[in-house]
């Protein structure tokens, strides 16, 4: 017996997945869409690299330049020695991009949720989370001391019902939803949720981690696409997806926003982002704004893959967003399917419960603006081949339009 024996059940799952060889170690990364795995070039279709900016020459150049001139790291917190000009410029760029008064940069997206949620919701307050929220939102809810209530995924009526039950109770209410949900790629019904927010006097926070640079006329995310930006009090997001680096942020018009710098413990008690990361992120944010063609390519590629998978007869999520999840009937099939895809030169994410909503096993893909039509056709051909080999795509099932 060790002190970790309490995790015996998880260990069993981990060891069984390890035995199936699902751990992936890249020998090298060749481009935003191609890596070397087990000695062979492999199409990357599960990296959240939505705009394909990880190898952008200008972003790399800015990172190198900042690293040479300012060093590899800040070795300190934002509230001590870790605030450089770059951090302030990045915050200004984010505030300008969103048209907000304030912005705050965190060292990861996970910490942004941890810090913001725990600062906004204290003892006696009420946090209303979509049931399918990301782990960072759940963990942030535990770091604060408010009462945490889950509402049914993407269900504004259920949210309203739960807010109604709170009527008469003191304390602030904060509703938290995501722009695009990371597993199925579905978007929140934000117009309806904003209406509930207005009617009940709650605050609204939207995590645009997967929708920044993806949705909206100028890439600001779902709030922009749904036309309800003025109803959203706080936007949280990450640099580690469409902006190709690492880090998180929060923007808002709340007049006393800056107090968060000394009440967000995940902001205060961690080293700030290294200068190279800050510099490449500022450049990537600028590219996102100056090159709408990136977003147009991304949307075109998402439809290419989504339509292709559905034509083949696979069961996908509800919307053609850059995250496209293919449902598998069980874990064994999911693992077998995933391994055959990988052996054929296609990498994507194997997602099994409890990381997935309900108890479904998923093959989760994320499309990039940098994928070529040829790469997506190859990916679809590999899917079709593996599907046939595993007996998925019989003509009968294709006619039925689904695999389940």
């Amino acid at each position, binding site marked *: 017996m060790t002190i970790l024996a309490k995790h015996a059940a998880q260990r069993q799952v981990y060891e069984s997945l390890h035995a199936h060889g699902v751990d992936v170690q890249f020998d090298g990364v060749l481009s935003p869409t191609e890596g070397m795995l087990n000695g062979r070039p492999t199409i990357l279709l599960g990296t959240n690299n939505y705009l394909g900016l990880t190898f952008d020459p200008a972003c790399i150049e800015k990172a190198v330049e900042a690293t040479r001139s300012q060093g590899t790291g800040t070795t300190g917190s934002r509230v001590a020695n870790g605030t450089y000009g770059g951090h302030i410029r990045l915050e200004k760029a984010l505030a300008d991009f969103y048209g907000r008064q304030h912005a705050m940069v965190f060292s990861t997206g996970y910490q942004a949720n941890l810090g913001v949620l725990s600062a906004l919701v204290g003892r006696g307050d009420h946090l209303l989370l979509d*049931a399918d929220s990301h782990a960072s939102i759940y963990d942030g*809810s535990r770091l604060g001391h408010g*009462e*945490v*209530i*889950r509402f*049914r*995924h993407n269900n504004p009526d259920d949210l309203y019902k*739960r807010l109604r*039950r*709170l009527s008469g109770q003191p304390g602030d209410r904060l509703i938290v939803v995501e722009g695009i949900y990371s597993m*199925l790629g579905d978007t929140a019904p934000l117009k309806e949720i904003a209406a509930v927010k207005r009617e009940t006097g709650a605050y609204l926070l939207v995590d645009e981690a997967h929708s920044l640079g993806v949705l909206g006329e100028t890439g600001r995310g779902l709030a922009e696409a749904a036309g309800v930006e003025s109803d959203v009090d706080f936007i949280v997001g990450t640099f580690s997806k469409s902006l190709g680096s690492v880090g998180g942020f929060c923007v808002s018009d709340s007049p006393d926003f800056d107090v968060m710098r000394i009440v967000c413990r995940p902001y205060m008690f961690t080293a700030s982002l290294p200068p190279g990361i800050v510099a490449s992120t500022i450049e990537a944010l600028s590219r996102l704004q100056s090159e709408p063609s990136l977003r147009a390519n991304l949307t075109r590629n998402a439809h290419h893959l989504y339509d292709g998978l*559905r034509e083949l007869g696979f*069961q*996908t*999520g*509800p919307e053609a967003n850059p995250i496209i*999840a293919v*449902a598998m009937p069980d874990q064994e099939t999911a693992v077998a399917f995933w391994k055959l895809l990988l052996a054929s030169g296609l990498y994507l994410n194997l997602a099994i*419960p*409890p990381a997935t*909503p*309900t*108890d*479904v096993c998923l093959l989760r893909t994320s499309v990039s603006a940098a994928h070529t039509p040829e790469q997506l056709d190859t990916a679809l051909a590999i899917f079709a081949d593996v599907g046939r080999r595993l007996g998925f795509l019989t003509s009968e099932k294709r006619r*039925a*339009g*689904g695999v*389940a």
Partner: protein
Amino acid sequence: MGQIRQLALVELKVEPPEKVTCEDISTIFEQVLGHPVKINERTDIVEDLGMDSLGVMNFVMAIEDFYDISIPLDRIAQIQTVGDLIHAVDDLRSGIQE
């Protein structure tokens, strides 16, 4: 067709009963699990009924609908047996905070 089906959840369109009973909870369990269950106040929801964390969450939402309450996450974490659940629902309905 072709979409991932969200789990259908129990929605009982009746006024919630005055008293929280094992019988009502048993009915909700059966609807969520899809098969009959035998429970009493000492039944351990995870151990005895073999529910995983997702099953528990779906079951809790069905209970919330039936009794028209919201059970905060920290309260859910304290519930192990059917008896614990009955007490939690009773407390929440009478407005008793933890």
